[in-house]
């Protein structure tokens, strides 16, 4: 027998269940308990960058929006820097931007929204340039282990075409499932997305 490696095993995931709001967004469960709450607003008045609204739905295999889903997003700041010590890039940090937020879907419509900024392009440690994107993590009743996907931006066509992750997606026709569409509404920039859990337009999910 060789020597044992003795690594531990990752704890098993369990579904977040229908009452995930109690722990993560208690106001949505219907009560007020913490002095400070996390939210879907990532910006302060002093955050650098272009203000955007991200909005979309998560759709099940019957075409119905999930009305009990919770999304978290994680993104770089306006110049492509993550607010974390493992980001060794030389881009400027922004103390007014944590880069993370969470949102529950509306109990009637299933709509999920975030108020954030558009991230900059990211140079990773291998020197590759990554198109601006936002990491998305999805949990809900019926989802046994959180789903990871990304959102890219429809107006970044050249950067998207050169993005190393988008270029891994085969067949290429599935790349469009990761692109949020830019529109303007009452002077505000809105990026819309649809995350399909199943079906011919199934969103690309990543094993990260």
């Amino acid at each position, binding site marked *: 027998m060789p020597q044992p490696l003795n690594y531990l095993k990752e*704890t098993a*995931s369990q579904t977040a269940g229908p009452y995930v709001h109690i*722990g993560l967004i208690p106001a949505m469960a219907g009560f007020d308990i913490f002095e400070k709450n996390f939210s879907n607003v990532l910006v302060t008045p002093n955050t650098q960058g272009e203000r955007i609204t991200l909005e979309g739905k998560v759709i099940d295999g019957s075409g119905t929006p999930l009305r009990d889903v919770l999304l978290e997003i994680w993104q770089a700041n306006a110049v492509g820097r*993550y607010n974390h010590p493992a980001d060794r890039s030389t881009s400027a940090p922004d103390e007014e931007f944590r880069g993370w937020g969470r949102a529950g879907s509306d109990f009637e419509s299933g709509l999920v929204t975030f108020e954030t900024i558009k991230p900059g392009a990211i140079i990773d440690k291998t*020197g590759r340039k990554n198109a601006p994107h936002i990491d998305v993590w999805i949990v809900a009743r019926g989802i046994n282990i959180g789903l990871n996907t990304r959102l890219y931006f429809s107006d970044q066509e050249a950067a998207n075409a050169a993005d190393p992750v988008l270029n891994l997606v085969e067949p290429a026709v599935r790349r469009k499932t990761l692109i949020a569409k830019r529109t303007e509404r009452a002077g505000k920039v809105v990026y819309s997305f649809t995350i399909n859990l199943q079906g011919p337009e199934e969103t690309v*999910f990543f094993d990260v």
Partner: protein
Amino acid sequence: MNVQAPALRDPRLDRPEPLTPPLGDGGFFQRDRSMHPPAHAPGYKSSVLRSPRQALLSLENSVSEITGPVFGHNDLGPLDNDLIRNYAKDGDPVGERIIVHGRVLDETGRGVPNTLVEFWQANAGGRYRHRKDTYLAPIDPNFGGCGRALTDDTGQYYFRTVKPGPYPWRNYVNSWRPAHIHFSVFGSGFAQRLITRMYFEGDPLIPVCPILTTIPDKDALERLVAPLDLNASAPFDSLAYRFDIVLRGQRSTYFENRTAGN
């Protein structure tokens, strides 16, 4: 099976303890999906329409995945880890008083410091304080049912609460959830993000739970069951349960080529 092999034999491998390489900024160990429930688990009926059917696309971790949100004590309030007091209106909540404690570790056995742990649960009667929960057991006016804590430098966390009750749910006609506490954990990178549940030693509902039995690996299932920890109990006050949580390990970048300036 963990298939990740180190690029070079490290002398620390010759020790029987878990390997503890220097804090890495490499990617996380490949997730061993046999330790997790499959997305599509027909015995848990809600998973049928909510499980992707295409293969996941495997990504080498980039800076987007090895980074993640950083939290601090400024994000929390003083009662956030005391569920007996954090929603009390005119007295203590009803139920068995318990302390839950443990460590957040990674797969190398190293404690994960300063990471946010969030938890939520039903009250002692099995009822959730949630606008969508209609179970006939009563709401406890003195119990909210949620809390949160930051791990200390060694990965330790703890909180105080009352033991949750089991509750029925619509899966089969007579499906009951074993008593459990939901946990949300961050780790240092977004790819470590995890939601799980802690169950209680000795609960007879554990082997018949349609959600728990989605986990194919028996040992992985048992690692969600917290033992009674009498040594950590508070005499004449609270029993204690211990629940350790393991997040993915992170590779060290011993011999990786880097481009200049990174």
